[in-house]
């Protein structure tokens, strides 16, 4: 067969969101790839300049559905930093709680999609069934399954009382039991999963650093970089060690995420047990002025917000640097040389979130 160009997307069942990869193939081997993005660019950075700065929280939450809490957290931390607000420590612990909860459900969503991308339907269903428990916790504590919307500038909006914390712990134990029994052994041992992921889409440490990969993509290549090491929110008190795998292939990235699910579970339990009494928010008055860069670790990697305020109710500029945008160059390095059948697995191994990417 001569060289063919396969239009992979923009509407392709593998991708949850529209992105197109123009794959240049020789037989079934990929020799070149050109990404076409811009199908769901919504101009959120512009909209953020037109809104009052407090309402931007709700706008930032909608940059991406899955990691909505992280976007709001990053924005609030940036504004708090700029306005020199001291957040009460209970609020910081609650922020860790919801942040890790959204990391868990994001990773589980991704794991299900990955299982679907290599046609392991029963694993996909099992993972999403376990994810449902996490979503229930999210709805119980924040009022919504996915868009928790609990951040405000100066703290959080909802509290978790003793009784609810008890219930959360029970549900997490239930989740752990289900995951231990049916998900973890399959992912660690199943030879067909390894056949599809091991050695596929290798990104070396040097490449990952030069191409500025972020998040599990970077950590799967052996770089111990995680924004939670910068000790925002309550990570200083709780303590944090990044999870690193060195192989740099799709399986390594899968392992990083699976281990992070368990790590998040531990962090949530720790946060619940260590949570101090006190207020959950402070009243913030005044208007932001100055410029600040705020970073948090999203499920997909590092999220950078650049916020510039000019002393009015509206912001001068809000720049959102998202992890998928940073990971696309790595994807373009991973794809050439692989088989067509591996394209879905490799593409999903960076956990693409196109809505984030294009904002």
């Amino acid at each position, binding site marked *: 067969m001569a060289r063919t160009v396969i239009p992979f997307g923009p509407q392709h069942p593998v991708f949850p969101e529209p992105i197109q990869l123009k794959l240049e193939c020789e037989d079934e081997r990929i020799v070149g790839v050109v990404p076409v*993005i*811009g199908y769901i*660019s919504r*101009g959120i*950075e*512009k909209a953020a300049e*037109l809104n009052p700065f407090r309402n931007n929280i709700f706008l930032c939450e909608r940059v991406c559905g899955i990691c909505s809490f992280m976007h709001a957290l990053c924005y609030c931390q940036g504004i708090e930093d700029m306005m020199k607000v001291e957040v009460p420590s209970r609020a910081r612990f609650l922020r860790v709680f919801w942040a890790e909860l959204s990391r868990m459900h994001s990773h589980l969503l991704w794991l299900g999609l990955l299982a679907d991308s290599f046609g392991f339907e029963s694993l996909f269903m099992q993972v999403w069934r376990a994810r449902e428990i996490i979503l229930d916790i999210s709805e119980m504590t924040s009022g919504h399954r996915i868009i928790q919307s609990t951040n405000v500038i100066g703290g959080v909006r909802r509290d978790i009382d003793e009784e609810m914390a008890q219930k959360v712990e029970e549900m997490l134990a239930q989740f752990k039991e289900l995951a231990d029994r049916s998900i973890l052994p399959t992912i660690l041992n199943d030879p067909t999963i390894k056949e599809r992921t091991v050695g596929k889409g290798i990104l070396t440490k040097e490449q990952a*650093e*030069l*191409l*500025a990969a972020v998040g599990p993509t970077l950590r799967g290549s052996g*770089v*111990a*970089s*995680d*924004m939670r*090491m*910068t000790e925002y929110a309550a990570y200083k008190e709780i303590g944090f060690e990044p999870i690193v795998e060195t192989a740099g292939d799709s399986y390594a990235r899968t392992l990083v995420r699976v281990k992070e699910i368990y790590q998040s579970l531990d962090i949530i339990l720790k946060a619940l047990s260590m949570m101090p009494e006190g207020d959950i928010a402070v009243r913030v008055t005044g208007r932001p002025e100055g*410029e*600040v*860069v705020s*970073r948090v670790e999203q499920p997909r990697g*590092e999220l*950078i917000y*650049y916020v*510039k305020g000019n002393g009015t109710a509206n912001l*001068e*500029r809000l*720049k959102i*640097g998202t992890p998928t*945008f*940073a990971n*696309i*160059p*790595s994807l373009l390095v991973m794809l050439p040389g692989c088989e067509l059948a591996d394209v879905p697995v490799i593409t999903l191994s960076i956990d693409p979130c196109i809505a984030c990417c*294009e904002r």
Partner: protein
Amino acid sequence: MENEITVSKAELITEVQKMLAQKAMFGTATCLDLDERFEIIYHFELEQGLKMRHIRVSLAKDDTLPSISNIYMCAALIENEMQEMFDIKISGIALDFKRGMLLAKESPKTPLMKGKE
């Protein structure tokens, strides 16, 4: 901001090369429209992301910015985005989408410029 240096357009490439020599990772870049000129801030990360370094470049509106994508290939995407969102000229981008990366043909031109509500 902390760890910020302001350089002129001519010094940009040497500064970025210094960052590469220090094994810094490219974070992202921000473009600001300050009415009479542009300001571009490159955010770099050192020590596995624990420290940040910002390089600020000021640019006249009709001037051309050299691309850093030949040093950091991953900067090509954000440079394309800046080029689309602002009326800024960047020369020598490694992968130039010619202002067609995020915006469609019928979408507004350079939407993040001031006075384009």
